[in-house]
């Protein structure tokens, strides 16, 4: 069976440069879009413990929040926001009620609103689309295209 490689774009340093935003501006934008205060997090790690995608992430959920707190640009090049499944396990378990799902969405939107999509429609083969239910395709495009 011929395997078709799905082209997925990951955040890279080049893309971060294309944003032309300082980390100050980025963190401000993340807080504005999410309505969350990144300093609410005191690094207990409950989110990372429950996150189903934690093993796949370059930076764990709690590390993402920490990076935002110290304005580390690595957070914008990590794959964490793109591998997040918006499952909300983090938010329901956070003792401070930090909506980490919204923080992840805000980071994605910073790229997507500048037309830097993270799933390629052209990269999906007919065979791949054919076997997927609409619910998966619609959700994927909502989260990873702008």
């Amino acid at each position, binding site marked *: 069976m011929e395997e078709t490689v799905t082209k997925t774009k990951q955040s890279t340093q080049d893309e971060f440069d294309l944003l032309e935003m300082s980390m100050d501006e980025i963190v401000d934008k993340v807080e504005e879009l999410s309505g969350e205060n990144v300093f609410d997090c005191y690094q207990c790690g409950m989110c990372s413990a429950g996150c189903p995608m934690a093993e796949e992430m370059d930076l764990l959920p709690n590390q993402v929040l920490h990076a935002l707190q110290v304005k580390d640009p690595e957070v914008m090049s990590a794959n964490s926001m793109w591998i997040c499944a918006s499952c909300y396990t983090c938010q329901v378990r956070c003792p401070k009620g930090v909506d980490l799902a919204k923080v992840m969405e805000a980071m994605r939107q910073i790229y997507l609103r500048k037309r830097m999509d993270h799933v390629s*429609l052209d990269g*999906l083969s*007919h065979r791949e*689309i*054919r076997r997927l239910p*609409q619910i998966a*395709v*619609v959700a994927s*495009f*909502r989260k990873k295209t702008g």
Partner: protein
Amino acid sequence: MASDKKDRGMIHIHVMGKTYEVPAGLTIMDAMEYAGYRFTRGAGCRSGFCGACSTVYRYEGDYRLQFALACQETAQDGMYLVQLPFTPAPRASYDIEKINPKENVLLQYYPEIARCVSCNTCTKACPQDIQVMDYIQAALRGDIAKTAELSFDCIQCGLCSMRCPADIKHYHMAQMARRIYGRYMSPVPQHLEDRLQEIAQGKFDDELDRLVSMSREELEAAYAARVREEAPAGSEISE
């Protein structure tokens, strides 16, 4: 006539920002030609069928953009106009004979329909009053027949795609749906199939040869004396 002239005043239209005085009652296309524009693109049948003359306009004092076909819409006083002679929308390449209409084939060839946010901007842009959003939704659901039915009046003007925030190619996708419907799904008209068979087998060859060899007088006589079907009993058809 004097009363005519009183009714038919002159109006002002603005074409790409420049103001012109044109007679009232003309279509946008005629009004622009009256003003001195020559259409080398963006004009075709001039009968509302080819979709070439997509027009975006606005009324003075109104913030909303409106959409029409220049050959069909009457120019109004205070209209701000521009033409859109071409929409650079890519069309999927496919062989209609090789398509399997059973799967979510429309989504396969036009995956961007999954980006539809049901904003209805396409419907508002359609000069043919088509429920465009509804047929995109039908396509997303895999209902090819409904997509074909709802999009029937589409003339491929491209205004929907130009306005869509999700960059969907509504009219290309709908054309594919109609082609699939026609090729695989619509019922076969058996009487037509039978007649085509008869023609192929030469059933009408002699009669056609006879007609072709008739003189004009013979043809006229034959036409006047042609057999006409009786109107069905109780019908309204009368001689």
